[in-house]
């Protein structure tokens, strides 16, 4: 080991020690100080009841599968519609001008209205038309509300990605004789989509959480199931269980997305 390596090793040991000690101090302070708060015993009993936790966990996990399901079928719809709206907003030909206007208005409306409101309006409003089964299902209209809202966001993300691709790429493709359509499909879009993967990943994590809002219009998914338990057991622990279950999915999902991005970046350098 030469002098520089020895120096760097010493530096590393020092940082590790500092990080370890400061983490220990903070954690110890929380563990020691929080129970000193006057309301702690009551909070512990109503939010962190081990028995309630164990009892409700399996059912809540099963209810969470409904969230996963709704999420799973919403994602392709959102990506498809988002892409269509993004392309409509970027249309150059004058014949497609109405499409551009439609795209702009669509994005304004669905980004401007809180998700919960869209879910209420569509989830209660459309089945109110007296549609026959199964077309009055809150699953369908809840999904529609989520898709409409999130595709507006995804459209904006994609559009920013498309606009971030340098004009020289388009020129190069056009000079090779490629049509506008092929240029978009083979040259611009693949680069644009790759570039906005992080932004879209954040969207999907947000969507995963917002699926729980459908509990307001009917489906007995995890949030509603937790509410039922709360009333039944007069205890808030089921909500904590629900939060833990969400974290079990969202944290690895974001980490995995980061990993994919880093790998992609490393492979290209």
């Amino acid at each position, binding site marked *: 080991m030469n002098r520089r390596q020895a120096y760097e090793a010493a530096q590393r040991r020092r940082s590790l020690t500092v990080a370890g000690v400061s983490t220990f101090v903070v954690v110890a302070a929380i563990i020691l100080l929080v129970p000193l708060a006057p309301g702690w015993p009551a909070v512990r009993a109503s939010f962190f009841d081990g028995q309630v936790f164990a009892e409700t966990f399996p059912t809540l996990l099963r209810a969470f599968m409904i969230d996963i399901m709704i999420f799973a079928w919403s994602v392709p719809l959102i990506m498809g519609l988002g892409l269509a709206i993004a392309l409509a907003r970027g249309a150059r030909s004058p014949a497609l001008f109405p499409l551009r206007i439609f795209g702009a208005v669509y994005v304004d409306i669905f980004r401007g209205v809180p998700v919960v409101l869209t879910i209420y309006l569509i989830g209660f409003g459309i089945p109110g038309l007296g549609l026959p089964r199964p077309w009055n299902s809150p699953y369908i209209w809840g999904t529609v509300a989520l898709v409409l809202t999130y595709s507006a966001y995804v459209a904006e993300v994609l559009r920013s990605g498309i606009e971030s691709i340098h004009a020289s790429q388009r020129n*190069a493709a056009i000079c*090779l004789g*490629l049509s506008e359509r092929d240029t978009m499909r083979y040259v611009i879009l*693949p680069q644009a989509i790759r570039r906005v993967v992080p932004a879209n990943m954040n969207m999907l994590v947000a969507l995963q959480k917002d699926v729980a809002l459908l509990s307001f219009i009917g489906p007995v998914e995890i949030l509603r199931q937790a509410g039922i338990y709360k009333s039944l057991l007069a205890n808030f622990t089921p909500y904590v269980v629900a939060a833990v279950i969400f974290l079990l999915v969202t944290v690895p999902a974001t980490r995995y997305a980061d990993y994919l991005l880093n790998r992609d970046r490393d492979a290209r350098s």
Partner: protein
Amino acid sequence: MPEAKLSCRGIQKSFGDNHVLRGIDLDVAEGEMICLIGASGSGKSTLLRCINQLETIDEGAVLLEGQDISEPGIDLGPVRRRIGIVFQSYNLFPHMSALENVLLAPRRVLHEQGGALETRATELFERFGLAAHMQKYPDQLSGGQQQRVAVIRALAMRPEIMLFDEITAALDPELVGEVLAVLRHLRSEGMTMLLATHEMGFARELADRVCFMDGGVIVEEGPPEQIFTAPRVTRTQEFLRSVLR
């Protein structure tokens, strides 16, 4: 005199108040290699971009074998595949391998498929010494290699004329040679070429004709020997003195 392969007739082009081309007349014969020289901002690049209709011209006409390709409203697809262009900044598609870069346009535009096309592409890579790099992505290649792939990509469309826009200007000096070798090779095959270049030695060695541009006009044109040894116009003399020092 046989009809020119490509003719520029009185081309004028402005960007806002900036009058970049002020009446360019130029004939390029089949198999001829013409070098455009001149200071940055003299209009060389703009002229090339006007020729392949990347920029629309304000006045004048561009004729490709007598057909006016600068006429508003004509279908530029068929025109562009007859004119290849390579830019200073390579502009390879970064998400595709070198080979995919080359195959895209022949597939989508010429509707060529399968083995025959791949053989043809592979031959091009071999001819320009890049067979080992076909599967690599642009950012795994050096600037000189990327620029050669860009040339191959343009050639894969079997263009009748090639435009080169200062294609060595962004390269490290030691990489310039390999790209110039490609041009030399094309020259020997009789490709019709129009180059904007700062490589005076190269222009002198290979060009059939050299055009000196300044202020949006061709100030002087002639065989390289004459332009480089006995320029007639004062501005050409000044320019050459400053770059050849």
